[in-house]
């Protein structure tokens, strides 16, 4: 961001940044997170996701175990570490959720609208997608993120994502970069990752899906973007839209090399 350069004379005083209490607040929050880390409710989603993965379901009554997440049918270990990626059968770049939906359609015989119907849970209503995505991501735990940006469609997705990252619009004039373009900034007390800085991006991108204590449920990367656009006063982002996946590929470029630590635990 550029510094205030028009304040000559009138407002030349640069304020000492923050009251002394700020340090203590930050320490308090860190302690809070440390105590929460003792047990992550996302484990419940991961377990339910594993069960869903292995249970025959849908009109064809088969499980998802033969789903091709990019490393071949039936290979789930390490697959999430290489998503999003291009899939020749759909001729699309797909993320975890979009690919799971493809498998629900092709393997299990669900209609596309059925596979995409309930991506985000609400109190009293589970989302299978949140559970499945937690399981699939957890199967790459400890591995390094290595999203390929080689196929023409992957490169195109990266370029589109880059444009979208900087695209300002709506009544708040926000783009992704408005909150994620600088190091060491916060919204209220939450640190904002600078998503084009590998140091920040590697920690953040690799921790989704995550249990969000403020929402009492696991949320996925699709939901993270949907929620960002909500805060940006944009309309409702379509689930698994091309834009959402393009933004993920853009973020993955900087997050590559980070260690998968999903499902995470967040505010």
């Amino acid at each position: 961001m550029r510094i205030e350069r028009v304040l000559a004379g009138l407002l030349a005083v640069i304020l000492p940044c923050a009251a002394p209490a700020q340090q203590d607040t930050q320490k308090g929050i860190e302690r809070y997170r440390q105590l929460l880390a003792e047990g992550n409710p996302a484990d419940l989603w991961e377990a339910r996701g594993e069960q869903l993965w292995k249970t025959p379901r849908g009109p064809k009554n088969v499980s998802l175990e033969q789903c091709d997440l990019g490393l071949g049918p039936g290979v789930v270990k390490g697959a999430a570490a290489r998503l999003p990626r291009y899939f020749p059968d759909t001729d699309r770049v797909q993320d975890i959720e979009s690919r799971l939906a493809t498998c629900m359609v092709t393997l299990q015989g669900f209609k596309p609208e059925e596979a995409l119907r309930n991506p985000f849970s609400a109190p009293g209503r589970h989302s299978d997608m949140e559970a499945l995505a937690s399981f699939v991501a957890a199967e790459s735990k400890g591995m390094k993120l290595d999203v390929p940006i080689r196929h023409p469609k992957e490169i195109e997705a990266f370029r589109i994502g880059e444009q979208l990252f900087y695209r300002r619009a709506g009544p708040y004039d926000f783009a992704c970069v408005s909150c994620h373009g600088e190091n060491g900034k916060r919204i209220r007390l939450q640190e904002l990752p600078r998503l084009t800085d590998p140091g920040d991006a590697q920690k953040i991108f690799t921790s989704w899906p995550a249990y969000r204590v403020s929402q009492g449920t696991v949320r996925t990367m699709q939901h993270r973007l949907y929620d960002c656009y909500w805060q940006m006063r944009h309309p409702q982002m379509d689930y698994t839209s091309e834009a959402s996946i393009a933004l993920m590929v853009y973020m993955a470029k900087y997050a590559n090399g980070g260690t998968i630590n999903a499902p995470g635990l967040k505010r």
Partner: protein
Amino acid sequence: MAGDKVDVKVLMAHEMETGLRKDAKGNLVPPHFIRNVTVTHGGKTVLSAQWGTSVSRNPFLHFRFKGGKAGEKVTITWMDNKGEKRTDEAVIAVPA
């Protein structure tokens, strides 16, 4: 041998509705919460709890008891205000 001290951590999937939350239409959602949790080992209760609505959603519980051996079972049962009940068992792990 008295057995080891067993560290028990439990996560439970439950909404823990307070009865104070409103749904999208503005109607109060009735309370729905775990009221009793009982943990047993070898036929003996090692912890029993009574909870109100202010225990967090998807509750977490951590405690320790003496006398458990690797391979033995610990049984955790909860019952909520609607009379719904769930029991799970876990096996005490071999100390690392």
